[in-house]
C-alpha cells in the first residue's frame, strides 16, 4: 500500500516537472546560485513590477515565476512541496488548507495584522472584490444592474440578448471560482437563483478571470459574473464599453495570499520576499501598484473572506461533491 503510494508520488512529481505552465519567467537571471521558485495564480504582467522591484533591492536573488491555475497550484504543491519556495494564490481556502496541513513554513519575524495572516505562515497582501463586469452597449437604454437581484431581473427580461453571452467561473476547474461560489452560496439563496437563470441562458464557463475579460473585450460575452475587479480594471480603462460593478447587496472580497514552502531550500530569500511583499502591498504606501493593496477598510466594511479554519468546510470531499452536484444541476441544464 505504502509502496504504491510512494510510486504514485514519484510519477506525479515527474509529470509536474514536464507539465506546461500558463507562463514562466525568470527575473535577474544568474543573480543567485538557484532561483527563488514562485508558483502563482497571478498573471505575470500584474506581478512583474513587484518582482522587479524586489530583485533590484536584492540583486543576489533570482526569481523564477511560474503561473498556473489555483487548483493546479494546490495539486502541484501538495505533490512536490520541495519544488517550490513560495506559493501565491487567490484561492484562500486552498492556501489555508496547505498551511493547516503543514506545508507552510512559519515566519515568526514578519509583522502583519492578525486578520491578514494565519499562524504566521499564510500572509494576505491584496484586497480584491469579485465584480460583475458588463458591456455597456448591451445595456443601452436599460439600467446597468447594481446587484445580483437586478442582474437576475435584467437577464430574465431580455433572455434573447444574453443567451450564450454571459460568463462565469467553472467552479470545478477554478479554485478561486469555487471559493467565490461557496462564499456567495453561504451569504444568500440569490446565488442559486442567479445560477439557475445563467444555466437557462447557457452561460459560458471559464477557468480564469483573464479569459473572461478577454472574451468580454472581444464581444464574445457581454456579462461576466464574479470576475476579479483587479484584472478588469486595466482593460476597462482602455476599453470604454466595459463597466465594473461591485454588487451592492453583498460584495465578496478575496485576499491574495502567499506562503513559504516548509521544504524550501532558500528560507532566507523566501522570507525576505514575503517581507517585501507584505510591506509593498500595505495600503499606506503611496506607490502606484499593479495589484490592489491590502485594505483594512475593505476587511471591515466589505465581506472580506476571513482567514479561518471555516474555509476548510467547503473543501471537504463530501461537501464539495454535494455542492458541485447542486451547481451542475443549476447551471448545466441539458
Amino acid at each position, binding site marked *: 500500500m505504502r509502496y504504491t503510494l510512494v510510486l504514485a508520488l514519484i510519477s506525479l512529481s515527474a509529470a509536474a516537472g514536464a507539465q506546461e505552465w500558463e507562463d514562466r519567467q525568470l527575473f535577474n537571471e544568474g543573480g543567485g546560485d538557484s532561483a527563488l521558485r514562485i508558483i502563482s495564480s497571478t498573471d505575470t504582467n500584474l506581478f512583474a513590477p513587484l518582482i522587479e522591484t524586489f530583485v533590484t533591492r536584492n540583486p543576489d536573488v533570482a526569481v523564477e515565476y511560474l503561473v498556473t491555475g489555483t487548483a493546479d497550484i494546490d495539486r502541484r504543491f501538495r505533490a512536490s512541496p520541495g519544488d517550490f519556495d513560495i506559493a501565491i494564490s487567490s484561492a484562500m481556502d486552498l492556501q489555508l488548507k496547505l498551511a493547516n496541513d503543514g506545508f507552510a513554513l512559519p515566519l515568526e519575524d514578519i509583522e502583519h495584522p492578525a486578520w491578514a*495572516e494565519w*499562524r504566521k505562515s499564510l500572509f494576505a497582501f491584496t484586497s480584491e472584490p469579485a465584480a460583475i463586469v458588463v458591456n455597456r452597449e448591451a445595456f443601452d437604454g436599460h439600467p446597468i444592474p447594481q446587484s445580483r437581484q437586478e442582474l437576475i431581473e435584467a437577464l430574465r427580461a431580455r433572455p434573447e440578448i444574453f443567451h450564450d453571452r454571459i460568463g462565469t467561473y467553472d467552479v470545478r476547474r477554478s479554485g478561486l471560482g469555487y471559493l467565490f461560489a461557496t462564499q456567495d452560496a453561504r451569504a444568500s439563496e440569490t446565488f442559486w437563483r442567479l445560477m439557475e437563470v445563467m444555466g437557462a441562458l447557457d452561460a459560458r464557463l471559464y477557468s480564469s478571470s483573464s479569459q473572461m475579460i478577454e472574451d468580454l473585450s472581444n464581444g464574445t460575452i457581454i456579462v461576466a459574473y464574479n470576475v476579479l475587479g483587479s484584472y478588469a480594471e486595466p482593460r476597462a480603462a482602455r476599453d470604454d464599453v466595459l463597466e465594473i460593478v461591485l454588487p451592492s447587496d453583498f460584495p465578496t472580497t478575496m485576499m491574495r495570499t502567499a506562503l513559504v514552502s516548509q521544504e524550501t531550500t532558500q528560507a532566507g530569500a523566501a522570507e525576505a520576499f514575503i517581507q517585501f511583499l507584505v510591506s509593498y502591498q500595505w495600503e499606506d504606501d503611496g506607490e502606484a501598484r499593479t495589484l490592489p493593496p491590502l485594505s483594512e477598510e475593505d476587511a471591515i466594511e466589505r465581506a472580506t473572506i476571513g*482567514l479561518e479554519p*471555516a474555509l476548510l*468546510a467547503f473543501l471537504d470531499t463530501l*461537501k464539495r461533491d*454535494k455542492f458541485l452536484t447542486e451547481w451542475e444541476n443549476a447551471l448545466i441544464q441539458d
Partner: protein
Amino acid sequence: MSNSVEVSGSLRNRLVLTLIGGAAVLAMLLFFAVRSYAVQVAQQGQDSILEASVASMLDAATIRDGAVELDLPYSAFSMLSTSADDRVFYAIYQDGTFLSGYEDLAYSEGQPFETQLMRGSDVRTVSASRTMIGADLRTDIQIVLAQTQDALSETLDQISRNVALFGIGFFALAAALSFWATSATIGQLDKLTISVTRRGPQDLSPFAKPVPQEMAPLVKSLNSLMGRLDQSLSQSEDFIAEAAHRVRTPLATVRSYAEATLQRVDKEENREAMRSMVKAIDESSRAAGQLLDHAMTTFRADHLERDDIDLVELVAELVQRLTPIVDMKDLTLTQNGDGQVPYAGDPILIQSAVRNLIDNSMKYSPVESAITITVAADPAPRITVCDQGPGFPSNEIETLTARFQRGANAATTIGSGLGLTIAQDVALAHGGALHLTNQPEGGACVTLSFSH
C-alpha cells in the same frame, strides 16, 4: 572585663528566614495549584467547543436515497477559530470506512477525548459517532475532530505569568509582613535590652514592667539571677569589709601597743625596734589601702556614675577633713579660687584622686611649707595641687604616672606612684588627663583636668 558575647546565629534572621521560606513555599504551592486548575479549566473549554463542533457535524448527516450524505456545516469550523490560528483536522468514517477529511486521523472507540501527536503538533481530539437508521439501512457515522493547542498554551502562559506575578506579589507582601512581625517581636527583646542597659551599675532590682508571656521565663530567670547577684555582691562586699576589719583591727592593736610601749621604753635599740615595727605596719596598711583604693577606682571608672557636683565644695570638704593631719605636720593647706565650678562626675572618685594628690604633696613637703589647691572652671574644669617640695625629677616626669613608678628622690615615701596612678585613672575615666609640672620657684604641681 570582656564585653563580647559568643554569638551563634540571629534570632531575627532565623525568624525572618522561616517566615519568608514559608511564604515562598506557599507562593509556589499557590502558583502550581492555580496553574493546574487553569489547565483543567482551559482544557475543558477547548473540549466543550470541540464537542459542540463535532455534534453539529453529526447533526448534518442525512440519509438520502439509501446513502449517507454529510454536508459539513460552515459553523462547525467557524467555531474552531482561535486567536492563535490553531490547526484543525477531522476525519469522517462510515462503519469504519474512511469517507473524507484526514485519513491519518484515527477514530477512537470509547475514549472521547485524547491528546496525541499529529503532523508535528500536539492535538486534542474528540471522537463521536451517530447511528443513522433509514428505511432499509442502519449505519454508524463516526467523526474525529482534532485541534492544535496553541491558543490554549498562550492562555496558559498568560495565566501562568499572571499567577506568577500574583505569587511574587503575595511573596513580597508576606516577606514585608515577616520583617514587620519579626521586628515587632524582636522589638520586645530590644526594649528589655534597653531597659537593662539603661540601668545604673548598682541597680539590681527586679524588672517590674509587663513583658509578653513568652519572655516571662527569661525575665523571671533574669530577675532571679540579679537577685542572686545582688545577694552575692553584698555578701562579697560584706566579706571584704569583714576581712579588712579582721586584718586592720589587729594591726591597729599592735600599732597602738607599739606606740604605747615606745612611751615607756628608754633603751635606744628597743625603741628603734618599736619604730621599725610601727613603720612597717604603716607601710603595709597604706599599701594595702592604696591597692584597695586602686581596685575600687578601676571598678567605679568602668561603671562611671555622674552626679552634678560643685568641685569647689568637694575640695573644701576634703581640705577640712585633711586639715588636722596637715596641721600636725605644721603644713598649711590652702584652697584658692572661689565661686562654683559645677561638673558632672563621680564625687567619690574625684575625692579619692585629690586626696591621693594631697597625700603625695604632704609626703614631699618640707617642714612649715604650704600646699595650695586651685579649682578652676576654664578652659576645662580642673583641680591643681601644688607643693613647695623638691618637685619631680625632670627626667622622669613623663613616666611618673605609670603604675608603681616612683620618683628617684622618693624612695622612702610609701606608694606615691600608685597615688598618681589612681589620680590618672580618675582623670581618664572623666575624659580628662593628669599633668605633672614643676614650678619655676620650686615645688611640684599636679593638675587633674576633666572634660566637659
